[in-house]
């Protein structure tokens, strides 16, 4: 297949706008899959992905398309994750494509997640094909959505394809638009090999299977290859195309997307964004865009039953085979026993790890309040990296505390600037600059403490801008700050798992909020439960959960004792899932109570 006939593209869409359904339709229309093989939403292969409608891992699938005029094309659909936590992975997947379908729900219109990925695509010089989906919904507002898209990317009305993936409308037009508008890949087949790794997965039989896009040269079975960033050498075991399954082709040529197996046993050995070249005839330099991904958010993960620590360790070992961004090391908590301190890319990543541990590995766990890494200088002149509130030196010996700062760009229609200012002010943000991309889009450049962003910034930003603002950020540096450690006491015992490091001025409010939330989340017990928040030995907030007053079904059950027994057994089960701290039973949700500031 000549490069002229290759089209590499991705689909940019908000959750629920129909990305997976459209992908399924394209696979069907190109005969890649027949109806029998269709399992709804082929691309999202993890249960979690299907359920949440979020793509977590990148995928790629190859299709053969014959135009009505009889010309044959190869399409590679590169599916990208869709969340700011994974923005680096997104940028690498986008780099593997030359075009993007911008899919917008006719009833919902353009949403924030779409915009931030769209800008990344435009930055990567992708050609955008706008598609309005679900045009046959009664609530569709095709004209207004057309208008939004035209404003957003400055296209002509005729360029927008109208479709309903669910009912097969517009599929042929989309296929033709891909042929006509997405440019073929560029690159020099005779130049030294440069292939981009845009994701890796672990297979228990084959080891690491990487997704690659060949930019220059070609890669074949048996080639000696070098990963240019990590400087590791391997021999190619197998390369090929990704259809529904892997199809071995022995060679991937310039411009093509495929998979690579080279005997690596751990996804950590192969970094997303690295460049593969031939060991004997290396390219002069790697492809641009590589970044070392570092965890931004840390939290403790503990088994609810302390006896399950070993199981949890084994589960984490298996989980990281397929998740190179997660790091973990053992730690202990006086309230929760043995567990692990884990580092995540962001809050969504943390939630995903938690859910995978619970669902794929059947672990019952508690995740503690997430925090960032502080730099604390003590009076003896030593510097400490504090990734866990329990490691915070006592206030008396602190010389200074520094917290991580991010460079954030918020892109928004100007009418929401007031709301955003209010929010960023509340989040201790410093406005550095305001510029206008065009009259309808302002770019607000902020310095924000990362700790404030990991709490609930993204959700609140979306809500105050009705989903129109997008956020992108990168690490900026450390800044001295007045941070204090806030402890939570339950019936006088400190619950170290709930300790947080907060800004001094926010400590009171935060302590009050946590106490109030815990009061709602801790069920009434046989005795009164007192919840306190304190800095050092000074108590700044107090709430209490009254003792159980009545817990008996005063009902005539007749002879249906089975039902009564099952009800009691269910309650007993519920109790088992709670964590016993002193004599108090605390539900798992309580440990997440501090995550979201409102409600």
């Amino acid at each position, binding site marked *: 297949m000549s490069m002229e006939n290759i089209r590499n593209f991705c689909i940019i869409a908000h959750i629920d706008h129909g990305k997976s359904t459209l992908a399924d339709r394209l696979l069907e229309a190109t005969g890649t899959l027949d109806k029998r093989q269709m399992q709804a939403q082929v691309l999202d292969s993890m249960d979690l992905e299907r359920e949440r409608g979020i793509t977590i891992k990148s995928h790629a699938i190859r299709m053969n398309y014959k135009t009505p005029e009889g010309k044959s094309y190869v399409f590679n659909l590169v599916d990208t994750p869709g969340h700011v936590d994974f923005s680096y992975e997104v940028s690498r997947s986008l780099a593997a494509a030359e075009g993007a379908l911008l899919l917008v729900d006719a009833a919902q219109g353009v949403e924030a997640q779409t915009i931030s990925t769209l800008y990344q695509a435009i930055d990567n010089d992708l050609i955008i094909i706008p598609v309005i989906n679900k045009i046959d919904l009664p609530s569709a507002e095709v004209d207004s959505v057309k208008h939004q898209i035209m404003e957003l990317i400055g296209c002509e009305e005729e360029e927008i394809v109208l479709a309903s993936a669910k009912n097969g409308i517009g599929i042929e037009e989309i296929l033709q638009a891909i042929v006509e508008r997405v440019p073929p890949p560029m690159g020099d087949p005779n130049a030294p090999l440069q292939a981009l790794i845009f994701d890796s997965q672990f297979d228990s039989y084959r080891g690491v299977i990487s997704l690659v896009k060949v930019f220059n040269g070609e890669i074949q079975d048996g080639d000696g290859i070098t990963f240019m960033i990590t400087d590791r050498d391997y021999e190619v075991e197998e390369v090929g195309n990704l259809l529904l399954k892997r199809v071995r082709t022995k060679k991937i040529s310039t411009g093509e997307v495929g998979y690579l197996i080279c005997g690596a046993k751990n996804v950590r050995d192969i970094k997303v964004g690295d460049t593969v070249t031939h060991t004997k005839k290396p390219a002069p330099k790697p492809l641009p865009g590589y970044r070392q991904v570092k965890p931004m958010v840390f939290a403790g993960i503990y088994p609810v039953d302390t006896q399950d620590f070993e199981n949890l360790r084994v589960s984490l070992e298996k989980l990281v085979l397929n998740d190179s961004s997660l790091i973990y090391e053992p730690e202990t908590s006086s309230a929760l026993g043995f567990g692990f301190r884990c580092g995540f890319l962001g809050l969504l990543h943390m939630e995903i790890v938690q859910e995978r541990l619970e669902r794929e590995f059947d672990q019952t766990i508690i995740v503690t309040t997430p925090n960032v890494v502080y730099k604390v200088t003590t009076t003896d002149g030593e510097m400490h990296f504090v990734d866990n509130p329990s490691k915070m030196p006592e206030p008396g010996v602190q010389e200074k505390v520094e917290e991580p700062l991010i460079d954030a760009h918020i892109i928004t229609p100007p009418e929401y600037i007031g709301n955003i200012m209010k929010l960023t002010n509340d989040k201790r943000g410093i406005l550095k600059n305001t510029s206008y991309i065009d009259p309808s889009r302002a770019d607000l450049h902020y310095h924000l403490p990362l700790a404030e962003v990991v709490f609930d910034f993204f959700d609140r930003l979306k809500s105050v801008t009705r989903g129109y603002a997008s956020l992108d950020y990168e690490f900026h540096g450390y800044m001295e700050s007045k941070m204090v450690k806030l402890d939570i006491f339950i019936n006088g015992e400190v619950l170290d798992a709930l300790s947080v490091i907060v800004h001094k001025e926010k400590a009171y409010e935060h302590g009050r909020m946590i106490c109030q939330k815990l009061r709602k989340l801790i069920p*009434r017990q*046989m*005795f009164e439960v007192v919840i306190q928040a304190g800095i050092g030995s000074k108590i700044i907030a107090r709430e209490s959960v*009254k003792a*159980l*007053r*009545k*817990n*008996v*079904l*005063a*009902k*005539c*059950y*007749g*002879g*249906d*004792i*089975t039902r*009564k*027994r099952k009800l*009691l*057994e269910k*309650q*007993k089960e519920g*109790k088992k899932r709670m964590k016993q701290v002193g004599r108090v039973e605390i539900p798992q949700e309580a440990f997440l109570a501090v995550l979201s500031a409102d409600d």
Partner: protein
Amino acid sequence: MNPDGGLYIHVPFCHTKCEYCDFYSITLLDQIEDFVEALLREIELRAADFREVTFTTVFFGGGTPSLLSAAQLRRIWEALQANFRIDPQGEFSIESNPGTLDLPKLQAFREAGFNRLSMGVQSFNPQELKFLGRIHSVAEVYNSFENARMAGFSNINIDLMTAFPGITRETFRHSLEAALALESEHISCYTLIFEPGTVFYKRMLRGELSPLGEDEEALYYELAAEVLAKHGYRQYEISNFARGDHVCRHNLIYWKHRPYLGLGPSAHSFWQNTRFGNKRSLSAYVRHLKKGELAEDFRETLSQDDLMFEYIFLSLRLREGLDLEDFHSRFGQPLHTRHQAAIERLLADNLIELTDHHLRLSRSGWMVADAVAEYF
């Protein structure tokens, strides 16, 4: 030795469905005759398995058993007598709706053999009766009660409902006092529970009704216990109060883990460590029995652990509590063997009391019986 047991007959008919009630009943009264026919078949089919049991209680519940005609009741009784061994000194109860009773009917109940009448009064306040969807009036309660005495019922229960939306201390006190003035032998006092599937539950989900919450419920409950105790009613079970020795012997069979046989749609049985129940559908019940087969919905044989747990939580509901010797002889081990830690903890928290022969809830444990049971 012949084991003693109880016999329950579920009569699944009501004039109208009360919006809070989740017992199985329907309003298609023209199917009563089909039901009676099917019930007679079930009696015959069950007879062989229960030949050695002496039934010391028979309880007609529902639904509204008082909707059955005198002739229908007679036929059922004859079949029961013909097929089962029934203790002539037994307790024979029938539940009734005060709006469906008159003197001839009550006399017919007596003639059929019933010696205990249970009246679903619920409240003595007209607005509350309307709210609960009851068809009877306060005047009918008084008339029916008087007629029941006249017909010769010397053991009468009054059901009262409490802790429902709209009730006040005053209205509840009024209901309690009105019930006391009638001097019934027994009073049952239930709190409203929003059961899934009922109209009240849907109304709760829609936000039209809200439960009073445990603090309020507790106050009503304690008010009932206090007022009734003052008038000589002994709270022998969480929801049940009796004068003298007029406890409900049938319900005690449930709480004391004795065997019972339930007949009719949705009725449950407990026999030889097995619990089973009939289908909760009159049409399915009738269909099966027409074919000469039982209409069972489920059957589960309880493990030793299940049996122990049931025994514990059921007997804790009784004022006298759990009989330690009986437990030991039933399960071949003392209660302490398995539950030493729970017992110590509950004693330390003053939730239970331990006497030479019994373990029972303390005053403060009484209101949190379910939470106490969860320790076992």
